[in-house]
């Protein structure tokens, strides 16, 4: 793999206009990645999902170089209907379109950071890989007091032009005081066997609000890793919703630092997977100061021989008195071959806190099925109704009504 990496790296660098110093930095990240390789089960964070094995088994040899010189045609029919929205379009990892048509132009700033190397606050091998190979990266700044009128949808589209490729994406967001942003990550893949490695960084200033929705719904054979780092100042709110369903393998990591008082973080997620899919959500909520709050709810429905993993950690440092942290994960295993692993973790150094977690996994409740069947539903209908209700609970946590409806329609959940 080493020669391949070197060669692809040289090709990538050739297409960029970087200073010698920046090239050196990128080289440093490349060497880091070459040393560490893809994470494997020996690393605690990857205990339940051995990425190295998964890539080997599903893709084999990866190529890290993509030719971004020619543009791809943006297929407008793929856009979400019935909801006016701003767009960022990635096709095969190339950024094709940034469009904030519905917003005041002077309130949003888009800064091209492709020529600058920005460090990412995470020293995993995947962030090294990302830093070494990201091609274009942008920073989106929402100015003070501005609330976006329409949500922003980021389309991640891949098509059959690429095969066995590693795609690295990076975006930075900065939300100034009292601003707000609604963001939907939407994956549409018609490609197979690629590895997407996505890093977002969010900087939330005082009293800003971020609503961050990730929708991986459509069936595909790709492998995805996404890392979101959220820094939160005083009184800021972040809400994250993850629908983890379509890809062959998908791991979402949310790292949230509650740096300012009265800041709060909400993370809700649904695993709805079948076949041989293997999905994971890992959350780390760091309560770093007084009076912060976090809430997490993860529900899973697992069919066939699918496997879901939830690793959630609440960290409370000794300054963070009056912390309120809550975490709940529930899983329904529908098939005897399905598997649910959880590691809900509490690490607490302050005494005046209220932290708890719960985790339950098991089969569908036979009593409930009996109840419904005794009222005239058949087995299949009863089952669907119960699963529907089970998942609806999480979808209802979405605070934005427009997005809630969009997601409800997308996964066919009825009220």
């Amino acid at each position, binding site marked *: 793999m080493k020669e391949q990496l070197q060669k692809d790296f040289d090709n990538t660098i050739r297409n960029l206009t970087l200073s010698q110093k920046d090239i050196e930095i990128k080289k440093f990240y490349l060497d880091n990645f070459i040393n560490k390789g893809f994470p494997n089960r020996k690393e605690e964070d990857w205990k339940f999902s051995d990425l190295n094995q998964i890539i080997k088994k599903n893709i084999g040899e990866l190529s890290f170089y993509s030719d971004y010189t020619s543009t791809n045609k943006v297929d407008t029919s793929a856009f979400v209907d019935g909801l006016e929205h701003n767009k960022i379009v990635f096709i095969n990892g190339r950024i094709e379109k940034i469009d904030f048509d519905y917003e005041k132009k002077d309130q949003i700033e888009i800064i091209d950071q492709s020529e600058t190397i920005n460090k990412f606050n995470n020293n995993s091998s995947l962030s090294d890989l990302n830093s070494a190979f990201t091609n274009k990266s942008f920073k989106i700044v929402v100015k003070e007091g501005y609330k976006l009128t329409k949500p922003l949808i980021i389309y991640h589209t891949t098509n059959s032009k690429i095969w066995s490729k590693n795609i690295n994406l990076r975006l930075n967001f900065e939300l100034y005081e009292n601003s707000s942003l609604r963001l939907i990550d939407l994956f549409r893949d018609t490609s197979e066997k690629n590895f997407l490695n996505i890093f977002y960084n969010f900087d939330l200033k005082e009293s800003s609000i971020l609503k961050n929705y990730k929708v991986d719904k459509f069936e595909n054979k790709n492998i995805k890793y996404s890392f979101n780092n959220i820094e939160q100042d005083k009184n800021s709110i972040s809400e994250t919703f993850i629908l983890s369903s379509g890809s062959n393998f998908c791991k979402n990591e949310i790292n949230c630092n509650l740096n300012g008082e009265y800041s709060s973080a909400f993370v809700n997620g649904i695993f709805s997977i079948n076949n041989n899919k293997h999905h994971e959500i890992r959350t780390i909520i760091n309560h770093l100061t007084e009076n912060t709050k976090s809430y997490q709810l993860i529900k899973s429905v697992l069919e066939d021989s699918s496997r879901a993993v939830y690793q959630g950690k609440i960290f409370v440092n000794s300054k963070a008195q009056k912390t309120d942290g809550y975490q709940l994960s529930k899983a329904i295993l529908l098939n005897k071959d399905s598997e649910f692993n959880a590691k809900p973790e509490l690490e*607490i150094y302050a005494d005046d806190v209220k932290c708890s977690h719960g985790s339950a996994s098991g089969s569908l409740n036979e009593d409930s099925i009996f109840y419904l069947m005794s009222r005239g539903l058949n087995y299949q209908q009863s089952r669907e109704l119960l699963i529907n209700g089970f998942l609806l609970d999480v979808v209802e946590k979405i605070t934005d009504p427009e997005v809630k409806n969009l997601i409800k329609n997308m996964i066919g959940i009825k009220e």
Partner: protein
Amino acid sequence: MDNRQKEIDNLKDYKYGFTTDIENTRAPKGLNEDVIKFISNIKKEPKWMLDFRLKAFERFKQLKEPDWQKPKYPKIDYQDLYYYSAPKSMKDKPKNLDDLDPKLLETYKKLGIPLQEQKRLNGIAVDAVFDSVSVATTFREELTKQGIIFCPISEAIQNHPELVKKYLGSVIPVTDHFFATLNSAVFTDGSFAYIPEGVRCPMELSTYFRINASNTGQFERTLIVADKGSYVSYLEGCTAPMRDENQLHAANVELVALDDAEIKYSTVQNWYPGDKDGKGGIYNFVTKRGLCKGKNSKISWTQVETGSAITWKYPSCILKGDNSVGEFYSIAITNNHQKADTGTKMIHLGKNTKSKIISKGISAGFSDMTYRGLVDISSKATNSNNYTQCDSLLMGNKCGAHTIPYIKNKNSESNIAHEATTSKISEEQLHYCQQRGLSAEEAVGLIVNGFCKEVLQQLPMEFAVEAQKLVGISLEGSVG
């Protein structure tokens, strides 16, 4: 001043911190094949036992010391330890208690463990282990009448080789982890109990461990086998003198329960925890594992962990037999600079297996406490159930409490439920108690005892009283 207060005052310092001045026989310092042969030789062990040890030592040489645990400790120099230390008077084994060195009797009297049977304590049979050897086992005749074997493991190797050969290493194989393997290579003594088919052991069996000599590691090995349909309740207590250096205690405990058998294993661990600044104390790195081998068998662990500088252990149950049951009840208290990383593993292999975990952690002062547990329901363990509850109580903002459960469910017809909470003693509860005339300290004692009740009531009577007192003493000075 009321009685309770007086009692606490008397016990303010670690009351078992004295040393017994007694002549020792020691193995040469260090760890090598010769030392292992020395131990084996002095115990007059048969060849198969020596081979067992050497095999473990071979394996040990390849193993790396684990470092994933939360409490870190300075590197232990395994060559700078004595692996065998015994009172000189034990060289020719005394025939009965009258021949026992009076100094030893005195020590156990001071510890509150009467070895003379006439002073017996509600019929508990005690095996007393002093440093590396077992010094006395009481009530043996009475037990023998029922066919129960209760003796030091070194004696069992001589007298019941067929049983030891069959079960030793069957739950914790010689190829297990670092400390377990070290123990397999150099273990010195410990208790052996065998309960024959259909016998309900008439009294509690108990081992009392005492580390006396300095620079010594204690490596004892306990093996309990409950044959079909039998029942035994086993108690374990531990103390050590106050010393400035850290001492290593790496024991292995193996339990085997055959069809319909039940083993109840209770520990009150009160090793020297180090002084207020965290100097000295025991490193308690123990491997405890129970195998529910037969159908309908049951193993229940109850532990009250108040001592040791570092406690690092996970008493586990392997639920192999169908319908078998595993239970784990734990109170762990850390104060001052103590550290603990403890919990359990419940491995469900058989059908209809059930397990229950109740863990209560209390940390005060500068201490750090971690609950780490594994519940693993394999794909064959149909219709199995687990319930886990971990509660932590924090006193002050210099200490830490952590919960790290690993939950694996591979069977759709099995259920796992896990709950954990972390909080402090609420102001309202304290206010309520103080309003009714209790001092702040008494109020905390009362609330903590209530917090621990679920576990305390699992202990046999005499132990429960002792444990309740210990809970109060361990938290001494942590209020306010």
